[in-house]
């Protein structure tokens, strides 16, 4: 549209020979716009993937690199996803981010890959997640920590 405006001005002033140059400049502007848009869009796709693979609270170093609009986008995406998940299962809700692989057992053996501090499980007991310690824990409590690389699923 901008190119049309410039071209019309060029024609009006009898300087139609400038039109090819105007077109070239316009192509360059469109190219820059395409590159920027694709870059920003790819960032959004990666943030969206992190919601599924990491969790609803992003690690500090990733958040640090997000601009304000992206933070806002992420929080709105979280909200949409949460309300969608709540609406499933006849109003009971279903956490789609759990059980990404079909579960084989209620409890699993995990090894701690790094110090993560204290971890409370449903019956109130507190486990100390110290590097290299192994525990036998309910699967649903561990899933997110495994995805985040804190625990390792040990299969015999």
């Amino acid at each position, binding site marked *: 549209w901008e190119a049309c405006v410039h071209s019309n001005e060029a024609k009006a002033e009898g300087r139609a020979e*400038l039109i*090819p140059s105007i077109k070239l400049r316009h*192509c360059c502007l469109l190219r820059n716009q395409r*590159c920027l848009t694709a870059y920003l869009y*790819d960032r959004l796709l990666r943030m969206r993937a992190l919601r599924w693979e990491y969790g609803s609270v992003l690690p500090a170093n990733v958040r640090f690199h997000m601009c304000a609009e992206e933070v806002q986008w992420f929080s709105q995406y979280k909200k949409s996803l949460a309300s969608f998940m709540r609406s499933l299962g006849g109003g009971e809700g279903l956490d789609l981010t759990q059980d990404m692989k079909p579960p084989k057992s209620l409890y699993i053996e995990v090894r701690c890959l790094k110090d993560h501090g204290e971890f409370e499980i449903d019956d109130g007991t507190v486990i100390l997640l110290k590097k290299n310690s192994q525990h036998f824990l309910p699967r649903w409590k561990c899933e997110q920590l495994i995805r*985040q690389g804190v625990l390792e699923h040990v299969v015999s």
Partner: protein
Amino acid sequence: MDTQSYLPVEPGVGMEENFLSLDDILLSHERLPIRTECRFPRLGYLERSTDAQDIPEGTKMELPLWLSKGLYEKKRRVLSVELPKVYREGWRTVFNADPNVVDLHKMGPYYYGLGSQMLHFDSPENPEIAQTLLQTFVGRFRRNMDSSQNAYNEDTSALVERLDCLEKALFASGQSGLNGFQSWEKGRASQLTASSLVLNYRKRKMADGPP
């Protein structure tokens, strides 16, 4: 198989580009030999070989695909695009004879992609170019598919180095399927794993952010 949450925009199919596809953006960066069919006033600085203020008509230069596509008009009043060597008759005969011997990575890493885009420029050889692209792909596909489905747990660089980008993507997809199947056979499909995205972020040293 690792469930894929990051789904980047794929490249377009055939003559179409996907606006948001990073692969298509890289593809359209490839340079083409062109000849200007009109004068470009005040843009002389783009054409380094002369000190002229304008680009005169009839200049031969190299422009990236995105610019060539943007400026091209059917009546050829603005520029005309020459076919790069790989798509001309000489090379086409080679491809038609035996597509498997050619190093498509060296022939411009985007052989199929750029070839499909060349069809926008109304060359009289378009039908032959299109036919050669298709036959080359068909000729090479069998070997690529076999190798991607049978190379398990080994160094595939020798297999992959002569493939163009489209073939590399297909190869990677085949490998991913093979690895997924093998891990299922070994009973490791139910093992929960750390997300590959997370591991990649960890590996990078964030020099300018909090740890």
